[in-house]
């Protein structure tokens, strides 16, 4: 196939079959945003129900379903895919690569995530969504009637597979595909933190895979791992879930840390303070992330020594995290700070996340945890770290990289409205929840009684949620209202790293010539020590590209068919689904596909056209 032929295709087909990491990145962003909106609607519905005591706007059962869908969606289908979107688009550009290591698997990862998420949502139309919380503790989940939990199990299994594949792809890309001179210790922090997050994915997701497998076999095939009267044990699920679950929260926060480490130096016009300490702290956090899972289980009765060990290990994470906070502060110190929207999100993150960290250390105090556990205090804690950390990070990344990804700059005016309303709304919603929790309001309740001193703070909390929703709508408006800002999109922020050296829109092959990296912050180095242009590491030559293919969609679709077969015990569907999936894998393996070459003339022409 020739270059021209590869480009002249119908748009929908083009997106379904793409293996271009930039397009896959945009798909992740679109998919993640879709689920983020769904999760947000669920959250607002829950907050409306809790606006006043004794309301019955949604019934208790529906409330449980909303709660479960909200948590599951936000963690697996919104936050992670949105981060994956930026990782996909930006990492190859930051390391000077033409492509990712496994373009095919990369696309497959996206489709598995997206179809898995849709499968979860089909449960809404088939008689009840899952209702056992995003943690799906047994025996509540293993005994939950109906098919809701089966959708949870299979939906997460399919999308989790996609995440695992994506993680491996990032690891190999970062190790094998770096441009000449881009040593590990010259990699931008976003790439570094994504690398560590991918390691966590690699080692955390298999535990979830097994947990879900056991739950599926228990629910659908009568296995007895969790059935106490058959010699089973319910704590096993909790361990498997949290051996995955705690690393998962670091899978979310580390890339966000990376985003802030890009945004803050750019807008402080200073090199990141303590680069190697930042890398080291990221690695330590990644390691400790695996040592602390049982802090979610202080109250199940592991015993005082076990509790103490996990308490101390948990508190230890505050040290590398503190190192990071101080490094960001010292990067800002003495800088010429520009208060762009992206930077505002970074600046808003610092105090917000510190508050979440402080409540984290409080929760980690195992004796005190008996008081906090399963109250709104925990809800406040994890929303401070997840919204104050991850979500603010995603918004910072959106404003920062939007010009490169979509070819126009988001309106700064609307952006600032968005930032302030969102920040105020966020603190309004969750700050009061600390006190609700301390006063004894349990989490995951569908209603509360009047006259217990909970009314006012619940009301404030709901108002805050409304404010956040309005803010988010302003963001959506900004996306559509800013499309005319098409000037100054190649390097709008006077950037430091390689992604700002490529033209916008980024050509399919990213770099006409592989760049030669001469220092940390290579673009900044060339701007100030060189002639402002990145040196090339190779002469202009033809470029090898992978072919587009529909097989990723086919493989994922087959698994969805099989999942329905499992949920409703229809053997032909199971077999048919697996035939589709394995058939497509077979085709992929047997039919060699060596891609195509873009001729030099086309690359030269792109260059002349200023692309």
């Amino acid at each position: 196939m020739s270059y021209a032929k590869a480009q002249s295709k119908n748009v929908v087909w083009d997106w379904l079959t793409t293996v271009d990491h930039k397009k896959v990145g945009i798909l992740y962003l679109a998919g993640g945003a879709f689920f983020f909106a769904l999760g947000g609607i669920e959250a607002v519905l829950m907050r409306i129900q809790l606006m006043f005591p004794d309301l019955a706007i949604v019934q208790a059962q529906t409330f449980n379903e909303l709660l479960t869908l909200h948590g599951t969606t936000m963690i697996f289908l919104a936050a992670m895919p949105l981060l994956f979107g930026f990782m996909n688009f930006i990492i190859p550009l930051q390391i000077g690569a033409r492509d990712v290591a496994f373009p095919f698997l990369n696309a497959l990862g996206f489709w598995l995530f997206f179809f898995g998420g849709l499968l979860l949502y089909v449960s809404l139309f088939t008689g009840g969504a899952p209702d056992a919380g995003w943690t799906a503790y047994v025996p509540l989940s293993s005994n939950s009637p109906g098919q809701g939990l089966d959708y949870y199990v299979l939906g997460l299994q399919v999308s989790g597979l996609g995440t695992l594949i994506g993680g491996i792809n990032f690891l190999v890309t970062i190790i094998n595909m770096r441009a000449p001179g881009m040593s590990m210790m010259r990699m931008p922090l976003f790439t570094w933190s994504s690398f560590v997050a991918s390691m966590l994915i690699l080692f955390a997701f298999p535990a979830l895979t097994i947990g879900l497998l056991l739950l599926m076999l228990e629910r659908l095939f009568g296995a007895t791992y969790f059935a106490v009267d058959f010699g089973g044990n319910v704590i096993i699920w909790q361990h498997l879930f949290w051996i995955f679950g705690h690393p998962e929260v670091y899978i979310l926060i580390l890339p966000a840390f990376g985003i802030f480490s890009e945004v803050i130096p750019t807008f402080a016009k200073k090199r990141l303070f303590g680069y190697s300490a930042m890398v080291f702290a990221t690695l330590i956090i990644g390691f400790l992330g695996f040592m602390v899972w049982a802090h979610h289980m202080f109250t199940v009765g592991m015993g005082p020594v076990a509790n103490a060990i996990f308490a101390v290990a948990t508190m230890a994470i505050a040290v590398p995290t503190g190192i990071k906070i101080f490094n960001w502060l010292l990067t800002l110190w003495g800088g010429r700070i520009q208060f762009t929207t992206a930077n505002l999100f970074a600046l808003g993150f610092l105090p917000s996340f510190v508050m979440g960290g402080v409540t984290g250390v409080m929760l980690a105090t195992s004796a005190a945890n008996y008081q906090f556990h399963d109250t709104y205090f925990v809800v406040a804690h994890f929303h401070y770290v997840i919204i104050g950390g991850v979500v603010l990070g995603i918004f910072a990344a959106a404003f920062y990289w939007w010009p490169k990804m979509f070819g126009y700059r988001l309106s700064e005016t609307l952006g600032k409205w968005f930032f302030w309303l969102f920040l105020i709304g966020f603190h309004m919603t969750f700050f009061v929840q600390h006190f609700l929790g301390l006063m004894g309001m349990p989490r995951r309740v569908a209603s509360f009684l009047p006259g217990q001193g909970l009314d006012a703070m619940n009301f404030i909390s709901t108002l805050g949620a409304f404010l956040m929703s309005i803010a988010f709508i302003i963001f959506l408006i900004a996306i559509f209202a800013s499309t005319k800002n098409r000037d100054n999109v190649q390097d709008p922020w006077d950037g430091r790293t390689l992604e700002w050296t490529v033209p916008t829109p980024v050509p399919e092959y990213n770099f006409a010539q592989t760049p030669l990296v001469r220092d940390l912050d290579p673009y900044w180095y060339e701007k100030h020590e060189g002639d402002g242009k990145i040196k090339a590491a190779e002469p202009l030559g033809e470029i090898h590209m992978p072919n587009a293919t529909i097989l990723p969609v086919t493989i994922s679709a087959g698994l969805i068919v099989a999942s329905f077969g499992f949920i409703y015990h229809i053997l032909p569907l199971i077999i048919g689904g697996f035939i589709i999936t394995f058939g497509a894998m077979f085709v992929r393996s047997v039919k060699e596909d060596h891609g195509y070459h873009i001729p030099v003339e086309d690359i030269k022409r792109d260059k002349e056209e200023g692309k």
Partner: protein
Amino acid sequence: MADHQAVEKQTLPPNPEKATLDGRNKYLGFWFFLGGETVLFGSLFGTYLGLRGGVVDGPGPADLFHLDLVFIMTMILLTSSLTSVFAVINMKRGNYKGLLMWMWATVALGIAFLGFEIYEFYEYYHAGLGFTTSAFASSFYTLVGTHGAHVAFGVAWITVLLIRYRNTGLTLTNAPKFNTAVLYWHFIDVVWVFIFTVVYLLGIGG
């Protein structure tokens, strides 16, 4: 495909499986996948070890396991590891026939292993150990069955490769494929080492 290009002859590099960037990517990525699989099996081992006392009124490990059968299965799998090692050595030597032959031997041993495993499960089932009998039963079948499923997948995968590439000769594309399949096969053997030790020997001995 590379159209309008004459097919050039390629000479054999010392490590044909790692001679191209694609090959190196595949090699590294597959190893990382095995790192993940380690945790996957770790979770299954943990579950089994946590639940192996939960026999209720069903049969327990000491009632069921036979050392002789497990010993034979272990030897078969170990030998299949060696045959796959020979396959790779022949690949690096450029002896494609040798590669194919040793891979077929590996497949044959894999099938023999699976046969014993099916026989074994059948026996246990008739001794009263159904999948749902007890937590021990469920976790035993899940652990050993997942390993068996890996063997079956490995057999199928290698067979597909052998048929697809029966007369293409060694190429820069199929060398990495054979190599990853062999890595996978060794990994299955590694898991089995733990299974025969932790499940069978400990089941009988303590």
